[in-house]
C-alpha cells in the first residue's frame, strides 16, 4: 500500500482545520450570532496584530511541551492522561524554587527552577510508569488518579504552606518568583518569551531521541511490539519507567515555563485544560515531535483568539472547543475528508494494514 505524500497529508490537515472552522461558523450562525464578526475577533486576537501573535505563541508554548509529553508516551505504547497533574506539580515546584531560593544569580537560579519543575513532573509520571512495570497497574487509571492527587495536593499547599504571606493577597497563590529565576521576554513589551525557543528546541530533541537514538528505538519497539522488544533483549519494565519519566519531564517543564515566563506565580486552576488539550495536540500531530508544533500553534491561536472573539461578538468562548473537537475528528477520519473533497491518491476502502497501523487505541488492552 502506498503512503500518502507529505504534501497530501498537509492538505488534508489544512482542509480538516478549515472544515472545523466552517462548522463552528454554522453553529454560530444557527444560534443567531454573526460568524463574520466572531471570526474577525478570533483573527484579531490570534494573528491580526503583533501583540496577538505574541499571545498565540505564549499559549502555544505549554501546548508544545505538553503535546510532546503525551506524544512521546504514545510512541512508547503508553497513554499518559496525567499531563494535567504533572504540569501542576511542575509549576508549583518551579514557583517554590523561584521564590524561596535566595542569592543565586540569574541564569543559575532559572535553570535550578526549571530543573526542579521538570523533576517534579518526571517523578509523578515516573511513579505511574513504575507502578505499571512493577505491578501491571494500568497507566490510564494511575495517571488519572495522580491528576486528582496532584491538583488537590498543590491546592492544599497553595492555600497553606506555599501561600503568599502578604496581607494584600487573599487568594491562594505563591509569592512571585525572584527576578533571578524569570525567563526573559523575547521582545520588549510583548509577552512571548525565550521559553518558546526552549520548547521548539526540545521538539527537535525529542525527534532526535525517538528516531535517531538507541533509547528511542527501544521506546518505539516497546510501543509497537513488546514481544519483539523482549526478544531483542530490551528491558520492557525499564523502558516503560523511563518513557513515563521523560514524558513527565516535558509536562513538568510546560508548567515550570508557564510560571517562570508568563505569570511569575502559581495559583490553582491555572493549568486546568492544558493537560487534556495536550492529548488532542499530540493526536493532531500524529504523535510526531515535529507534528506537535503546528498542532500546538493551531490550538494556541484558537485559545488566544477566543477571548477577543467573545469580547467583540459575545459568542461564548466554548465554540472554540467545538471547533477543536471537529478538527481532531476530521484529522483522525482523514478518509472522510479525502472523500468529501475528492482528493485521490488512496483507495476508497480503508485497508486492514492501515487500520492496524493505528498506534493509539490498540495499546489499550495490552497486558504486558
Amino acid at each position, binding site marked *: 500500500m502506498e503512503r500518502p505524500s507529505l504534501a497530501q497529508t498537509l492538505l488534508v490537515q489544512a482542509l480538516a482545520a478549515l472544515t472545523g472552522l466552517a462548522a463552528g461558523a454554522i453553529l454560530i450562525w444557527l444560534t443567531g450570532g454573526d460568524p463574520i464578526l466572531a471570526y474577525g475577533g478570533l483573527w484579531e486576537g490570534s494573528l491580526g496584530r503583533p501583540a496577538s501573535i505574541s499571545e498565540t505563541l505564549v499559549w502555544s508554548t505549554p501546548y508544545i511541551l505538553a503535546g510532546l509529553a503525551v506524544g512521546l508516551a504514545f510512541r512508547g505504547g503508553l497513554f499518559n492522561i496525567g499531563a494535567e497533574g504533572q504540569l501542576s506539580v511542575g509549576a508549583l515546584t518551579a514557583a517554590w524554587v523561584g521564590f524561596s531560593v535566595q542569592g543565586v544569580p540569574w541564569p543559575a537560579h532559572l535553570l535550578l527552577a526549571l530543573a526542579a519543575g521538570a523533576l517534579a513532573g518526571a517523578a509523578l509520571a515516573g511513579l505511574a510508569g513504575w507502578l505499571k512495570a512493577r505491578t501491571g497497574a494500568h497507566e490510564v487509571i494511575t495517571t488519572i488518579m495522580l491528576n486528582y492527587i496532584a491538583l488537590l495536593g498543590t491546592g492544599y499547599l497553595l492555600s497553606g504552606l506555599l501561600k503568599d504571606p502578604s496581607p494584600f493577597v487573599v487568594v491562594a497563590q505563591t509569592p512571585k518568583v525572584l527576578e533571578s529565576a524569570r525567563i526573559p521576554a523575547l521582545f520588549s513589551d510583548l509577552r512571548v518569551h525565550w521559553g518558546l525557543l526552549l520548547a521548539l528546541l526540545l521538539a527537535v530533541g525529542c525527534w532526535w531521541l525517538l528516531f535517531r537514538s538507541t533509547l528511542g528505538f527501544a521506546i518505539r519497539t516497546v510501543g509497537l511490539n513488546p514481544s519483539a522488544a523482549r526478544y531483542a533483549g530490551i528491558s520492557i519494565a525499564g523502558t516503560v519507567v523511563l518513557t513515563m519519566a521523560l514524558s513527565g519531564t516535558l509536562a513538568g517543564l510546560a508548567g515550570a515555563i508557564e510560571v517562570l515566563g508568563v505569570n511569575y506565580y502559581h495559583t490553582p486552576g491555572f493549568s486546568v485544560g492544558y493537560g487534556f488539550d495536550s492529548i488532542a495536540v499530540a493526536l493532531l500531530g500524529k504523535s510526531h515531535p515535529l507534528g506537535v508544533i503546528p498542532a500546538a500553534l493551531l490550538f494556541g491561536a484558537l485559545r488566544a483568539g477566543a477571548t477577543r472573539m467573545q469580547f467583540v461578538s459575545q459568542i461564548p468562548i466554548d465554540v472554540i472547543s467545538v471547533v477543536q473537537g471537529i478538527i481532531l475528528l476530521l484529522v483522525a477520519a482523514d478518509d472522510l475528508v479525502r472523500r468529501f473533497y475528492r482528493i485521490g491518491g488512496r483507495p476508497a476502502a*480503508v485497508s486492514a494494514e492501515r487500520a492496524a497501523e493505528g498506534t493509539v487505541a490498540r495499546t489499550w488492552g495490552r497486558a504486558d
Partner: protein
Amino acid sequence: MLDVVVALLAISIVKSTPIVLGALSGTVSERSGIVNIAIEGMMLGAAFAGFAVAVQTGSLGLGFVSAMLAGALLALLHAVLTVRYAVDQIITGTAINILAVGLTGFFNRQLFATGAPAGAMVLPRLHVPVLGDVPVLGPILFQHQPLTFLAIVLVIVLQWALFRTRWGLRTRAVGEHPLAADTVGIHVSRLRIGNVILGGILAGLGGAYFTLESVPHFEPLMTNGRGFIALAAMIFGKWTPLGAWGAALLFGFTEALPVTLQIQGFAVPYQLVSMLPYVLTIVVVAGLVGRAHAPAAVGVPYLKGQRASG
C-alpha cells in the same frame, strides 16, 4: 455513631451511581471490542440535554429521555467512525470529550446566560415499602432516588445478560476474536455499533444523575472526571458488571467520606481527605488487581474480508 455510619454508607451508594452507570457503559462497549474513553463526554452531554429539556418543558420524564438520547447520539458518532471508518478509537473518544465540553458550554451560555428559569426540580426520593422501614439496612439501601435503584438493577441485569444470554456470548466472542465470530455468522459491525449505542444510553443515564437526580441545575464541566473514574472502575472490575459495581461502591465510599467528616465537624484539611479515593484506587489497582486483562480485540478495528495483523 450508628446513624453517622448509616449516613456514610447511604451517601456512598448515591455517589457511586454515576460511576457504576459509566462503568457499565464502558463494559458493554469494550466487551464487544470498542474502547470508549468518551464516557465523560457522553455523561456531560446527557447532563446538559436532560437539564435543558426538563427546564424548557417542565417534564422530568422528557428530560430523562433526552439525556439518554444525547448519550446515544454521541455514541452513534463514536460507533460509526470507529466501526465503519476504522478511525482510532482513542482519538474519536478524545474528540467527543472535547466536543461535549464545547457544545454544553456553548448552549449553556446561549440558553441560560441569565441563569436557568426557576421551577427546575430533581427526581423524588423513593421509599421502598417494608424494606425501607428495616432499621439500618432500610436507610442505606432502600431510600434512594430512582436512578440509584436503576443502576443497581442494571448491574444485575447486565451481569446476567453478558454471561447467560446469546447477546452476551456474541458480544464476548466479537470482543475476543472477531474473525472467529464472523466465521460462524455473527455480524461483527452491527453488534459493535449496537453495543456502543447501548453504552451511550447507559452513560446518558449516568449523566442524568447530575442534573435530574443530584442537583436541579447545570454547571459547565460538572461531571468533573466521573467518566474517567468510571473507566477505572470498569478496569478495576475486570470488565464485569458486578466487579464494576464493587469498584464503584468503593469510589462512592471514598467520595462520601470527606463529606461526612465535614458534616461531623472534623477539622481535617478538605483537600487531603478528598485525595483519599484516588490514593486508595492506586493502592488497590497496584496491589490487589494487578494485571488487568482487557478483551483481546479491544481497540483493533475489524474489517470484513481482511485480516488485521497483530
